[in-house]
């Protein structure tokens, strides 16, 4: 018995050592075909992505091996690990220009304009200029996953309950087109109405609308004008400031190559941004009523992302600054609200001279940011066969029937090349498509800012020092703008 135990211990030790020494061995070939490795950064659609890969394999015979990160997990670290592995992905995802430098410098990002395949070339050439992943305007390094957009969401039923069902559509249309000053007056009137309802009038885009004399329906639940996620610095750090950055930079690439002169010209737009944030945070409604700036406003327990979505969906607030990615979360609270919601642009008190991209302030305030959050890139260090398979996969994926089936149908996303014929499923996506078709879009220059400047530097500063401060002055607006510019310059210098 004793001898057996000793023998077993020896065998186990030898086996363990053998396993450790051998490492993992595998093959990257199946039935003589090289496996196409793919890295998917959207863990939320892992299952659907796998299904798409399986369908591709069934149709073409090219074996695929897809790796998806966990839902909600940061993708860049797993991607770096995959790139260092024995079988690096031939198709990988890139979160815009921020990540492009890394993969370009390492020689892994293939310039897609060098591909000669005519079908693929057509796809690359067809990517709209403002959605191209490029540093110089010539080389293109990615095919957009999809597009996302954001603005102030508004529920048509809420507007109907405030102004009457017959006026709802006209009020929303007027809100889309109105100026900052009109929007400000509308919000103040709405705030007064929440406090004490009366048949007051508001003027929007040349029309006058009258509130219903008494609160009805969803309006009875209102506690404030804006649902606000004060503890999420990316909402005002990344997204709100991005609107202001559009005044100087038309694309992320431009922001990425910002000169000191351009950065200095952000003083006006960033001051306008601070003024708008001041206004928004003076009209926030929480579960317990109107919530002034202070410690409660940045508490994750009361003003986090989930709570802001909940408050909007429950009808505690008229507007929520979020993007179409929030549609599913809103639907979980109230599917009807998600079905009725659309976007109105985030307005800033800009003047024409502050805008350097050719738009007027009026045009600017009629646009919403629409951009590609992620791109499919091809690994230039993958084998020639793997690159060819990757090209074939992306070409197959961009066939109109596959765009409809997978990107719209399975991933519930808005294709970057959506046409009026694209059958989108949710109301917010349809709203984005409408803005795209009307050419009323802004870009995502915040993707081109250094590192985590917009959220961790500017957003964090606002959260820690300003959202807890009751009154902001003109000097505060200027200080916020100056801080934003100086820290951008510092980060830029550290990177170079």
């Amino acid at each position, binding site marked *: 018995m004793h001898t057996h135990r*000793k023998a077993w211990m020896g065998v186990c030790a*030898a086996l363990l050592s053998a396993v450790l020494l051998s490492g993992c061995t595998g093959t990257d070939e199946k039935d003589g075909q090289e496996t196409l490795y793919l890295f998917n950064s959207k863990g939320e659609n892992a299952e659907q992505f796998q299904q798409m890969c399986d369908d591709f394999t069934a149709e073409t015979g090219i074996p695929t091996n897809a790796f998806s990160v966990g839902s909600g997990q940061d993708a860049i670290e797993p991607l770096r690990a995959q790139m260092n592995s024995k079988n690096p992905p031939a198709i990988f995802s890139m979160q815009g220009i921020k990540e492009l430098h*890394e993969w370009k*410098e390492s020689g892994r990002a293939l310039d897609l304009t060098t591909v000669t395949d005519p079908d693929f070339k057509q796809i690359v050439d067809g990517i709209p200029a403002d959605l191209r992943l490029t540093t110089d305007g010539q080389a293109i390094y990615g095919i957009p996953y999809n597009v996302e957009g954001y603005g102030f969401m508004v529920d048509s039923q809420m507007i109907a309950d405030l102004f009457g069902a017959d006026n709802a559509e006209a009020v929303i249309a007027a809100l889309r087109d109105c100026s900052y000053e009109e929007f400000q007056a509308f919000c103040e009137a709405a705030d007064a109405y929440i406090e004490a309802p009366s048949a007051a009038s508001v003027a929007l885009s040349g029309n006058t609308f009258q509130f219903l004399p008494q609160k009805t329906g969803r309006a009875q639940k209102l506690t404030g004008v804006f649902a606000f996620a004060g503890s999420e610095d990316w909402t005002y750090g990344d997204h709100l400031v991005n609107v202001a950055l559009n005044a100087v930079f038309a694309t992320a690439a431009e922001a990425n190559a910002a000169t000191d002169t351009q950065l200095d010209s952000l003083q006006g737009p960033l001051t306008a941004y601070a003024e708008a944030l001041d206004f928004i945070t003076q009209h926030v409604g929480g579960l317990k009523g109107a919530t002034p700036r202070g410690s409660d406003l940045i508490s*994750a327990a009361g003003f986090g992302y989930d709570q802001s979505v909940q408050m909007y969906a429950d009808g505690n607030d008229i507007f929520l600054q979020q993007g179409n990615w929030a549609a599913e979360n809103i639907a979980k609270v109230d599917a009807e609200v998600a079905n009725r919601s659309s976007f109105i642009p985030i307005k800033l008190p800009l003047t024409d001279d502050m805008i350097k991209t050719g738009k007027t302030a009026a045009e600017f305030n009629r646009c919403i940011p629409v951009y590609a959050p992620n791109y499919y890139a091809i690994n230039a260090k993958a084998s020639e066969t793997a690159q060819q398979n990757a090209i074939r996969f992306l070409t197959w994926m961009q066939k109109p029937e596959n765009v409809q089936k997978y990107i719209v149908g399975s991933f519930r996303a808005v294709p970057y090349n959506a046409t009026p014929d694209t059958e989108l499923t949710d109301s917010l996506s349809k709203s984005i498509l409408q803005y795209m078709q009307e050419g009323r879009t802004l870009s995502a220059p915040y993707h081109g800012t250094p590192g985590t400047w917009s959220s961790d530097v500017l957003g964090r500063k606002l959260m*820690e020092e300003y959202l807890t401060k009751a009154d902001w002055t003109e000097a505060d607006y200027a200080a916020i703008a100056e801080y934003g510019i100086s820290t951008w310059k510092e980060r830029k210098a550290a990177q170079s």
Partner: protein
Amino acid sequence: MDRYYKRWFWLLVLPAILLFVCIIALPFLIGAVYSFTSWRGTYFAGGSLAQSFVGLDNYRSAFANEQFVHALLYTTLYTVVAVIAINLVALALALMLNNIRRGAGLFRTVFFLPNMLGGLAMGFVWQFIFQVVYTELLFSPDGILHVEFLRYMTQDGTKALFALAIMTTWQSAGYMMLIYIGGLNAIPGDLYEAAQIDGAGPVRRFFKITLPLLMPSITVVLFLTLANSFKLLDQNVALTDGAFGSRLIALQILRTTQDITPPNYGVAQAQAVIFFVIVAIISLLQVWLTRRKEVEF
């Protein structure tokens, strides 16, 4: 049996050695080498390993980084508070449980349970406790006892330090308590009887018998709490995410790779090496000091 172990010693320890070399030693050595290069996570900026050698630049950058220096000081302060709090609470719990006869097992289990929770989950649970239970229910002007310091504890650097310490004490005290209970059980009862006969009171017995004979356990617990406090990460991410200057050193190292693009893993690695050296020196000093106080009986 002895002959068997002597004969097959190397074969039997080989798995452990291989694991240690592959998972600890090699990555550490590679990391130390990379701290002198411009490693970007998947490639060396400038070409090969040799071409990307930057000497002590990464170490200079680390010390020139205000956030790194602040995180280092903040972590040291947090460690002092957490080590004292965890040890005092763990020892108090151990002494109490050592003196009760009924239900000791149940209490041991209950006190140990928080240790089963993961760091992130714990951080989010305590975020709710600090932001709702402390701020609105217990310590608000309308609460049980108005203590302003205990409200909004995640919104101020000093308060956040104590918030982190409260949370980690809740988490670790039960585990450390078990080590102390083991140490207390190893102290012979006749020493206490003799001391009692000689007229020594409870306080004197504690300082003259319990504490000196508990030193081996104190050495272990101090070492564990020191190391755990210095490398605290998940709880920091979940509870404060480093806001209001509450970034601990592990979070600082993690965020260094995100602060600029392309990521500068060389600097992050240099920060990690500095961190390792500091923790190693403090831990060795602590073990040496407490070992000197240990008595044999």
